[in-house]
């Protein structure tokens, strides 16, 4: 009994000296890590494009946390960015892979998130029209029925393209449709134009009116779309999770950077594209749309000058065009500490070429 009391006393003193937090915080683990991707495509398949798609398809997080007994739950939202925001708002996600506009709207609306790393940067926008459409320019879309998936990252770019052609959404009959619905409506000619992928083009059902991709020019090539207008995304974590499990966030980001590195090696080009095609986009189109890009450009996780400027610019544009009511400080939203630690740990500080703000 005396021994027991002595042991308890020593344990109590130890806790007092070292601090309760340091004992219990170290190695603190959640039972489950919940990750959601807005890049699941609109085709009903539980996969994602982008670097997070590599992490998921190769089971890298499952492998990383296997020894800890931490479960990894993946969610791929049909409703893309807005649905991912909704899930974060309702405390059902810890990490989100989201595009620029929805993440900005979410943060401006009060979602407590941190931007950890870049992902799916400088993606392309294709504005499609039915194959037999007489339309030859964006300006001719005035008064016509156009399908736009509102609230996702391409919404911002499409708005800018319209504006550059002297149009706003109010000049069009806009239908808020998901990716698959836009394709179906284009195929049945229920809409005159819509933003989407190239699946229908290869079936001869649509043609590309405007493209942001220099290697795949559209019919209307009058506008040279600035690179800053291209949709960009990133990996986010909720502040609550980051505060509670900083070590877990560190490990998740490290795995993410490892995946980005593997996905940036040209020898893996075929395999990377095959993994991305699991979302339902044909492999040939992934190859075609990325023909002019290196894998390093596609999978860079760097929060470089270009990336920060892109988000600041998108934030201002969103405020001016009333996508958001409140603004916020982008610099304090970004938390580079986890990314920098992972780059240093993996010796990848100079692996990717940072883009300058200009």
């Amino acid at each position, binding site marked *: 009994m005396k021994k027991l009391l002595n042991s308890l006393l020593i344990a109590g003193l130890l806790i007092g000296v070292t601090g309760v937090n340091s004992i219990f915080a170290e190695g603190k683990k959640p039972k489950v890590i919940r990750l959601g991707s807005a890049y699941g495509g609109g085709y009903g398949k539980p996969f994602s494009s982008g670097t997070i798609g590599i992490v998921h398809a190769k089971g890298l997080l499952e492998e990383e946390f296997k020894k800890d007994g931490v479960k990894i739950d993946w969610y791929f939202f049909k409703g893309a960015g807005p649905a991912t925001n909704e899930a974060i708002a309702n405390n059902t996600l810890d990490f989100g892979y989201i595009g620029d506009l929805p993440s900005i709207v979410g943060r401006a*609306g009060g979602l407590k998130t941190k931007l950890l790393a870049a992902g799916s940067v400088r993606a392309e926008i294709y504005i499609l029209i039915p194959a037999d459409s007489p339309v030859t320019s964006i300006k001719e879309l005035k008064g016509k029925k156009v399908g736009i998936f509102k609230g996702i990252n391409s919404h911002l770019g499409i708005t800018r393209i319209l504006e550059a052609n002297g149009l706003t959404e109010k000049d069009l009959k806009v239908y808020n449709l998901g990716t698959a619905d836009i394709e179906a409506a284009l195929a049945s000619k229920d809409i005159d134009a819509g933003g989407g992928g190239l699946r229908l083009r290869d079936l001869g059902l649509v043609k590309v009116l405007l493209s942001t991709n220099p290697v795949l020019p559209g019919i209307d090539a009058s506008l040279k779309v600035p690179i800053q207008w291209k949709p960009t995304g990133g990996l986010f974590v909720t502040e609550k999770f980051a505060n509670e499990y900083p070590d877990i966030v560190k490990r998740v980001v490290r795995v993410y950077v490892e995946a980005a590195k593997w996905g940036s090696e040209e020898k893996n080009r075929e395999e990377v594209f095959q993994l991305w095609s699991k979302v339902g986009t044909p492999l040939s189109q992934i190859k075609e749309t990325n023909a002019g890009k290196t894998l390093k450009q596609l999978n860079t996780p760097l929060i470089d000058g270009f990336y920060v400027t892109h988000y600041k610019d998108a934030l201002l544009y969103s405020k001016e065009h009333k996508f958001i009511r409140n603004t916020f400080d982008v610099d304090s939203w970004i938390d580079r500490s986890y990314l920098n630690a992972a780059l240093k740990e993996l010796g990848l500080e100079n692996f990717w070429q940072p883009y300058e703000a200009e």
Partner: protein
Amino acid sequence: MIKIFRILAIGVFLFVNFNSLLFAAELEDLKSEVQVLREEVKSLREELRAVKKEQPVAAAQKETVTQVDLQGVRTEVETLRDQWQRTLDKKTAQTTRSLTFGGTVATRYTQTRDETTKSGFSLSSLILSFKGNLRRDYELGRNLDYAFSLSSDTTDNYRVKPLDAYLTYSPLPSLDLEKPRLTLALGQQKKPFGRDPQTTEEYKPTLRSAQFDTNLGLGTRDIGFIAKGDLFPIVDYGFNYRAPLFEYAVGVINGAGPNTTDNNNQKDFVGRIGINAPVEYNSIFRGLSAGISGWTGQKSLSLGSGATAITRRGHKNRWGYDLAYNRTPIGVTAEYAQGTDATLSGSVANPVLGAVKSDGYAATVFYNFGQQFVKGFKGQNRYDDWYPLTYQPFVRFDSWDPNTHLGNDRINVTTLGFNWFFAETTKLQFNYNIVKKQDKSGSNGSGYNEFLAQFQYGF
């Protein structure tokens, strides 16, 4: 001269021999080159053989497709099409217009100490529903839709009766989230009064409706015309969220209840005006709403029997207000309703027209553990039949005074409940009711406790 010939002869000899020597050397070179080329050809042939061995399928694919082959494929496709059409004709139910077919079934067990009720199993709800579209406006969403459902009346030997039977038309465009909406509904339908009375079985946390709902006839269907709409919607595309600032509903109905003709020539008027907090999705005030409802009409009253019976018309008025805060995972609702019903008493010779005033209120607090009510979360890309598990404990206090002029006749019911949503349309519900009836003498009164368990599934 001879010398010259000799010199020429020697020159020719030497030239011929020199050329022969040169030719011989070239020949040797050529021979060796040919040998090298032969070796290369041999090596290439071997490589080709190896490649052909590795890619027999690719080589086969290069075979030319003929018109005959194409005709064969076409015939195969036509045969498959005919087979599919025959299967469709024979094995598939068809409808004239688009149709969604569904239903709700609930099996309940009640253990009660109420002397007027027996404990045991019952089918508390049997609903078969059909709904669809009669005319679809793809451009603006001015659709003409229908709804028809059948329900077994659990108080009338499970006799099947029509529940809903109405047409709805949207005269305003309904595809643009930022525009106000309006729907016109004609037929037998729920009355636009209050919150609890309009909630369908699928979303009600409690097994029994609030007492004022049942006793004032608010939740029952009626036949008539109802216009419902909203104004000044708040749209947050970042969360795919839409909440109208104002909601309104106004209707003219028989007021006689469902599945019957009107019992007088007067029509009843019913309506509700609601207001929602004009905030974005992530605001703490999202889901905060309030409403005020009213229903006024007349009812036929009779006194006596046979040839001497007399009938009179009397007023029937209802009004109420409701307040709700429903922001997942928390939900709080509070609702009050009051009714005035004309009465006919006295004698046939000297009838007295009077009125009974009654009122009731109910407040419910619930908490959701799980994602059942997060709209975007349910719409996921998955291969399995996954659905978010949700547990919903709740507590409700429900009070009813059948006659406010009489004292000590109030009935209070406190319900402790738990709902377990374990599949998309399936839930298991438990309610424990503590019923207290005030005694007219003003003493502690009577009461009883009861336990209800219900398994509800939809298809």
